[in-house]
């Protein structure tokens, strides 16, 4: 079992760099759902050459950035229950319609965090198996979105690989992830394992393999 002393880890891309790589891969006119937490950063890196429409599963299509302090409306929040804004061209709908956008295959991309991703694209990101189980909309997103991107650190805080042969935590979905953006690499899920699309400048493929519990190839 791989367990790296965290002091020996090579520092990878910071979260802003990862977010900008994802933003760069979202095509013009995509409908996108960004998960709560780190994935929310992606919206800050969308280039001027494209327009992306953000969906928030609590019934908001065309979500804009956080409001100024004096413009906060507690009836206008995102899936993380934080105040947001609505952009021109946006709309509201009820929860079943909002999840029809997800479950009906209308959302082009979702970007989610992860606890574990298996070599076959299984994702675990909703339960550590301890405490109160709470799933939110994660299972709907992975089952319904056309492309499921994962944004994650390559290793856990205590130095264990998040990219694994088989998930040990309760699954969010089986065979659902298409691409992983970690601090060490961008990888696609393929029949032959994790395919490296882009490798961090500071690390070698051998190093990447040593911190990944599953076949890596270029």
């Amino acid at each position, binding site marked *: 079992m791989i367990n790296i002393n965290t002091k020996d880890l090579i520092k990878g891309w910071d979260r802003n760099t990862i977010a900008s790589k994802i933003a760069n891969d979202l095509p013009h006119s995509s409908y996108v759902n960004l998960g709560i937490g780190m994935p929310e950063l992606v919206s800050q890196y969308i280039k001027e050459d494209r327009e992306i429409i953000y969906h928030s599963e609590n019934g908001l299509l065309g979500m804009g950035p956080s409001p100024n302090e004096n413009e906060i409306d507690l009836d206008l929040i995102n899936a993380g229950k934080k105040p947001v804004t609505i952009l021109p061209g946006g709309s509201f709908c009820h*929860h079943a319609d909002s999840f029809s956008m997800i*479950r009906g295959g209308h959302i082009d991309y979702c970007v989610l965090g992860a606890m574990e991703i298996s070599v076959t694209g*299984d994702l675990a990101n909703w339960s550590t198996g301890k405490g109160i*189980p*709470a799933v939110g909309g994660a*299972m709907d997103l992975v*089952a319904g979105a056309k492309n499921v991107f994962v944004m994650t650190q390559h290793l856990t805080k205590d130095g264990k690989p998040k990219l694994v042969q088989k998930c040990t935590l309760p699954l969010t979905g*089986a065979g659902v992830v298409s691409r992983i953006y970690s601090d060490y690499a961008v990888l696609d899920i393929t029949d032959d394992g994790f395919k490296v699309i882009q490798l961090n400048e500071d690390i070698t493929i051998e190093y990447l393999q040593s911190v990944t519990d599953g076949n890596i190839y270029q």
Partner: protein
Amino acid sequence: MQINKIKKDMTEILSDVFDGATIMVGGFGEAGSPIELLHGLIDKGTKDLTIIANNSGNGRVGLGALIGQRQVKKVICSFARSAKGVTFQELYNKCEIELEVVPQGTLAERIRAAGSGIPGFYTATGVGTPLAEGKEEKIFNGKKYILEEALKADFAFVKAETSDRYGNLTYNKTARNFNPIMCMAADKSLVQVKNILEPNEINPEHVITPGIFVQSLINIENPIIETNAIEEGMTYP
């Protein structure tokens, strides 16, 4: 005689609610949460409730307060963990409240199905996860789906922005969330509404919940704002 669904006070609108009832509670976090109706239920002392909602309450206000008063035996929700949640967590850790976790979209669709006379449906959400255990599976076009059943309730507690005496409702922004589908899925929908207008003052094109889905209304002009109430240390009762 004219149809008039507007009740004069909290006692009247809650008069039918009974011990052991299943109640859908609208809202996503605090947006659209019918806090005053829930406080009315605390005053009434109704017990052994099953609550269907997205969340399990914040602080000791609204749903959080109702749970804290031990009036709820079971919560069916998608996300019972929240930064400001207190009472559900306390009872859950002592195994004194039951929890059924449902993926958010499946929760919404089960509610919508109940309101539309659909007893069950197949969905890809949850396939291959612990939440699929015990559920019937079926393959359509080579892909696996699980059977989910409709979710009904005796009552829906709902918060709306505007109504007329027929119960034609509009909502405010993302405070809409589960409220319209819960009105459809409950035997009786009890709605607290900020503004009551004359029937000709709501544009029929703007009605989100048609009055057929609403049984009773109460005018709450200045509802409690949960965030502020919690910051001020409010507890109910």
